[in-house]
């Protein structure tokens, strides 16, 4: 495994009284106090780490801990106050403007939290942007960009404008724009944080697949520990501009470096702190009554082996559910006249996104094998089956065992 990026004593202070601010920061003074005394913010303080080629390196920390600043120091969107950034042994912090531009064009591409797509350019023109500024001929860059869009299943949307796409699709374009450059390194600053949980999960899976195939070196910023644990090969935890621990997810969970990390990590192994939002899955046994009749519903249940179907309409509202038994009986009795109305039941449990998990245990126990429906703004967002909770509980149990050992 070769080292791709090496960061040494990297420091960024916003403001004038740099020395004084750093001194105070090294005495572990609070950020507010430093700002009050010096009007300077120590955003990144003496950070050191190495990132291996082909690794997903996650930088995690609370809001304001310096993650965005750190990732922008790597491609010098923000100029470092002190320290070095080595990319394959080349010191990026010493590059001339022209050389730096060349590095940005060919070696590092960035994906942003708010997508940062150019609103006046089509999806294709956005994807071409990096190649265009680099001077690649129009025909060739269109071909490359179309390939990148095709890989993310977005080719059909190439002539749309960003605002016409959903958030998830926009970020896929953002990713395609980065990949069209064929960079060695991807910098991703909270790239999935603005997406809703189910889409975010999908994007995480896609990113991991992509990593399998393309072996990019990815620096991924997040404030979400679950996301960090899911996709990170290694995780660096930041607090007030300093890196307090670097390690694999396992190491951080089982062996927190200090009290701060311990408190951070407690969030994952306590079911009380997780909400249903974190463990729900996409409803599969669901049917849109505006589009499909009862016979189609029966067919779905038989072919997919679902004992029930959740009923929804085109607005994703929850209308109730039907069981396979009731449906079969209704069709037998009424034939073509059989209707959802005759057999719909509504006694399924419905909870909000932020319901703590223990609250739903008894719903899952009381209602046979029916799921609990998670709703937000009158729309179905997901379902929780018994297995979702069992998976969670078993992972907690494992962590507790490994802590004892």
């Amino acid at each position, binding site marked *: 495994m070769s080292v791709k990026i090496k960061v040494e004593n990297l420091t960024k202070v916003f403001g004038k009284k740099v020395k004084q601010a750093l001194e105070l920061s090294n005495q572990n003074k609070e950020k507010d106090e430093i700002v009050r005394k010096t009007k300077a913010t120590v955003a990144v303080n003496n950070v050191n780490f190495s990132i291996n080629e082909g690794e997903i390196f996650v930088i995690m920390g609370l809001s304001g801990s310096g993650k965005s600043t750190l990732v*922008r120091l790597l*491609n010098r*969107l923000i100029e470092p106050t002190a320290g070095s950034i080595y990319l394959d042994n080349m010191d990026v912090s010493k590059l001339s403007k022209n050389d730096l*531009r*060349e*590095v*940005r*064009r*060919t070696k*590092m*591409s*960035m994906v*942003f*939290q*708010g997508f*940062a*797509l*150019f*609103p*006046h350019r089509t999806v294709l023109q956005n994807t071409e*942007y*990096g190649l*265009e*500024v*680099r001077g690649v001929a129009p025909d060739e860059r269109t071909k490359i960009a179309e390939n990148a869009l095709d890989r993310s299943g977005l080719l059909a949307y190439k002539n749309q404008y960003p605002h016409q796409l959903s958030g998830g699709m926009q970020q896929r374009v953002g990713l395609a*724009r980065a990949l069209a*450059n064929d960079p060695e390194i991807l*910098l991703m600053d909270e790239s999935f944080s603005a997406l809703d949980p189910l889409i975010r999960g999908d994007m995480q899976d896609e990113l991991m697949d992509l990593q399998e195939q393309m072996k990019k070196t990815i620096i991924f910023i997040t404030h979400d520990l679950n996301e960090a644990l899911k996709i990170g090969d290694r995780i660096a935890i930041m607090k007030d501009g300093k890196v307090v621990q670097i390690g694999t997810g396992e190491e951080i969970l089982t062996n927190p470096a200090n009290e701060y990390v311990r408190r951070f990590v407690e969030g994952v192994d306590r079911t009380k702190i997780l909400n249903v939002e974190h463990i729900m899955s996409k409803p599969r046994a669901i049917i849109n009554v505006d589009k499909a009749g009862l016979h189609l519903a029966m067919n779905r249940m038989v072919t997919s082996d679902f004992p029930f179907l959740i009923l929804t309409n085109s607005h994703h509202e929850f209308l109730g559910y039907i069981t396979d038994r009731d449906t079969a009986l209704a069709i037998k009795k009424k034939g073509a006249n059989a209707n959802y109305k005759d057999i719909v039941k509504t006694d399924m449990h419905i909870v909000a996104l932020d319901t703590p998990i223990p609250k739903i245990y008894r719903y899952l126990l009381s209602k046979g094998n029916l799921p609990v429906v998670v709703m937000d703004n009158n729309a179905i967002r997901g379902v929780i089956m018994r297995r979702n909770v069992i998976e969670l509980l078993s992972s907690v149990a494992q962590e507790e065992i490994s802590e004892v050992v």
Partner: protein
Amino acid sequence: MSSILAILPHIDLAGKVESLTSFLTTAWSPLFDGIQTVGNGMNDALTGFLQAVPPAVFVVVFVLFAYWINRKRKSFGLAVFTFIGLWFIYNQGLWPAFIDTLSLIIISSLLSIVLGVPIGIIMSKNDTAQAIIKPILDFMQTMPAFVYLIPAVAFFGIGVVPGIFASIIFALPPTVRFTNLGIRQVPKELTEAADSYGSTEWQKLVKLDLPIARPTIMAGINQTVMLSLSMVVIASMIGAPGLGRDVLSALQRAQVGNGFVAGLGIVILAIIIDRLAQRLNKNIKN
């Protein structure tokens, strides 16, 4: 009390400005003469061309254009107004004056844009430049427009060119301000995206800043055109021909009727230009 205020001797600012102006007038006279020749040439060419177009053709072209840019909304209001307005100007015998005014506005607006947009760009990219230019713009806009007429005459004599000069000074600020504002309002993440993909400053300007800022810049240009239109009466005081001169001479002879008619001509021109510009801008935006 007055003795405290009188501690310093009288500062002869008026005299200083006067001597500076007369110094410039003599020292830079080749430059001013050159500008005057070029300016007169441009204006004569444009006026000559516009005068050569038969009024009927002119009206038809404008009405068709007004209809064309509103074609998607299926609205004929602007086309009808343009027709009635231009016909009225012709009917009142104001056509030659109208052409002179139009030509004055076109030239001073174009020059304002050519100067103003680059100045606005520089301001948006450089905080020091902004700190210096902003008060100058404030000064240019608040100083009564008549005051510009004096150096304008000193530099360029009597005629169209000093009129254009005074109009530009008066009408330039909105274009500069709005260009600066529009570019500064480009979202930071977009600028970061352009930078992170290795854009040069020029590429960033052309591919990101100007397209995003365009509606704002257009709003500034629209104001600039309106302001230069509002200068036509004042410019006529130093010999610029056009509708302004008709208003002025009516004023001097206390002819209410003639003054009203010529003033109405200016209003009609203002409305037509304003509506056409706004519609055009909206069309581009979609």
